[in-house]
């Protein structure tokens, strides 16, 4: 992500320091992570110290300071999903992708996260990829689901 695009995003928010989180969210959703250079640029333009930006960027889970994969896998480990075998789904996905929760593979294809509830307990165990919900999924079916993503 180059400075021109970052400037565009900042201008969209009138260069207001109070829009810092919105600016960061926009960069995050477009770039999937917040590179150091981007934060320096934001700091310069919004006149907010880098320490403050870093404090906010590390506080909220929506932000990432490391590159994330093209597809975000969320596996629900809530109670309902847990009793229906979420652990086995997670194990299988870890096997298939070769990454643990919180990690991203080397090709930047997948990022894996566990969550504590996705709000659709009747569909447990639930796996969500890029916001698309795969409900009542068996460990074997995860392979088919993952194959669809490039």
């Amino acid at each position: 992500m180059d400075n021109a695009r970052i400037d565009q995003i900042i201008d969209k928010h009138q260069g207001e320091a109070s829009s810092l989180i919105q600016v960061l969210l926009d960069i995050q959703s477009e770039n999937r992570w917040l590179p150091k250079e981007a934060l320096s640029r934001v700091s310069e333009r919004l006149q907010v110290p880098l320490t403050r930006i870093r404090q906010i960027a590390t506080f909220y889970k929506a932000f990432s300071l490391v590159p994330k994969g093209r597809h975000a896998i969320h596996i629900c480990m809530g109670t309902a999903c847990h009793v229906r075998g979420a652990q086995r789904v997670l194990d299988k996905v870890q096997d298939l992708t070769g990454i643990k929760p919180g990690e991203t593979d080397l090709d930047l294809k997948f990022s894996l996260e566990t969550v504590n509830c996705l709000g659709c307990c009747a569909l447990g165990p639930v796996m969500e990829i890029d916001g698309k919900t795969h409900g009542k999924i068996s460990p074997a079916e995860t392979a088919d689901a993952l194959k669809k993503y490039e």
Partner: protein
Amino acid sequence: MSKIMLTIDGREVQAQEGMTILEAAQSVGIDIPTLCRHEKLEPYGACRICTVEAENKGWTKLVASCLYPVEQNLVVRTRSEKVDRIRKMILQLLLSHAPDARELQDLAKEYGADKDRFEKEASFCIHCGLCVRYCAEVKKKNAVGFVNRGARREISFIPEIASKECWNCKECFPLCPTEALQAAYILTEALISSSPSFTT
């Protein structure tokens, strides 16, 4: 500026509007322990060790005296069974992070806090924010800040700024109630882990 009368530990105290309980107490020589306070910095209310009982119209509440503004006819108790118990607990929790800090040990002696009450998790930092705030408010360099949150919250230097500013300043080191261990340690770590061009 109107005058406000309040009672602190049974003594009548006259204070200016806008003063905090802590300032009013200090003006008549009543001592309230503090850890995150510094006269050059804005009150922060992080350590809660200055907690006192404040009674107004029969209602008693526990407040951080470094932040709570004085009120007319407020009755403040800086030492009571409840206050002592709270300070003791806070000290025990802080000591599990910084068991060797002399400032904490002195207070622990006074309040009977046991440094082994909780399992040690020596991070040395008690999150008083003195270094962070001093750098931001007094030096205006913002070389050090907090990162992460909750149990994983810690202070961290920005190597690019720290390598330029910190070696000639280091004014935050003596401020640290846990004796600068953390500040020195993390500064070094930040400088070593950054690329070679930043270490000079």
